């Protein structure tokens, strides 16, 4: 239980950040026509910022169900890597229930918490953090949907960039150390602008096509040796 308490404390700053970003995500969900309950349910079940944003765009565009699965796979594929990495940090005899729960709540932040422990992670430490931060995420999304309509337009406009702020905070720091990531970011910006402006392709289709194309190019030009996912 000591692990749970410690984890809960770590979960407080994570939860505050989650609330702000989830609020911004709620604004995107409202644009897609989701009710506050549907937004709450999505965030409760999914816990993924980029993945949920991509999905809300797809819902707004009424894409076929198969494309919904495809966009979900593409926008969340990084969790495959994290899941592999986390599997090495779990005590080999850990019960399947713990594995399922840790997998269900595998986000960038909870992942960073779990892998920072040596030599193995304590599931209860993670549960402590999750018990505070996960409700912030789900409630924040519902609040964004409710308040997004009630707040003045200028406030909504300002809050809607919170999500992109978070994305920038994730992609820019590694680009300082690895020039090839900086090149890929610029290439992604440019090609995303070109495709979304000069072709009739929907946003979710552009995301799928470019993620596969640009990441493949990166893998061909600069193969990554050694550890493939570090936090």
């Amino acid at each position: 239980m000591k692990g749970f308490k410690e984890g809960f404390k770590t979960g407080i700053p994570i939860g505050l950040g989650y609330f702000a970003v989830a609020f911004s995500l709620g604004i995107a969900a409202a644009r897609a026509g989701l009710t506050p309950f549907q937004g709450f349910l999505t965030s409760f079940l999914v816990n993924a910022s980029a993945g949920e944003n991509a999905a809300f765009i797809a819902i707004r565009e009424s894409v076929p169900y198969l494309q919904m699965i495809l966009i979900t796979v593409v926008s969340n594929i990084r969790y495959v890597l994290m899941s592999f990495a986390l599997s090495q940090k779990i005590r080999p005899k850990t019960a399947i229930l713990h594995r399922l729960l840790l997998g269900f709540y595998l986000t960038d932040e909870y992942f960073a918490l779990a892998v920072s422990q040596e030599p193995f992670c304590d599931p209860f430490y993670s549960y402590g953090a999750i018990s505070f931060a996960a409700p912030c995420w789900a409630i924040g999304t519902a609040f964004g949907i409710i308040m997004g309509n009630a707040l003045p337009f200028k406030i909504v406009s300002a809050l809607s960039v919170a999500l992109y702020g978070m994305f920038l905070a994730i992609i820019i720091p590694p680009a300082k150390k690895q020039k090839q990531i900086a090149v890929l970011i610029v290439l992604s910006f440019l090609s995303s602008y070109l495709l979304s402006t000069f072709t009739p392709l929907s946003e979710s289709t552009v995301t799928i096509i470019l993620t596969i194309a640009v990441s493949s190019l990166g893998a061909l030009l600069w193969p990554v040796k050694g550890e493939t996912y570090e936090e």
Partner: protein
Amino acid sequence: MKNNIYVYILLMALTVFIIRVLPLTLIRKPIQNLFIRSFLYYVPYVTLSVMTFPAIVRATASPISGIVALILGMIGAYKELGLFKVTLICCISVLLLEMFI
């Protein structure tokens, strides 16, 4: 024809769950193929970049405030201010600019 939102949510939840849980429960060995490993390594940066631009410029009431938020956010992220502060910088810059535009 409008698709059902609950079906979308269910499909998304199931797909994400499978992606997150399968390696954790079934596969214990690291991926050997160099191309797949490298591809998976670059995917998060590319997806997030593609979703950020030009969307950030189109999300705000005026494209100018979106561009300023993007530039200031990139500077903040470059200085490694962390998730919360970078997010705050983007929001406040849009709020202040749109008071005057």
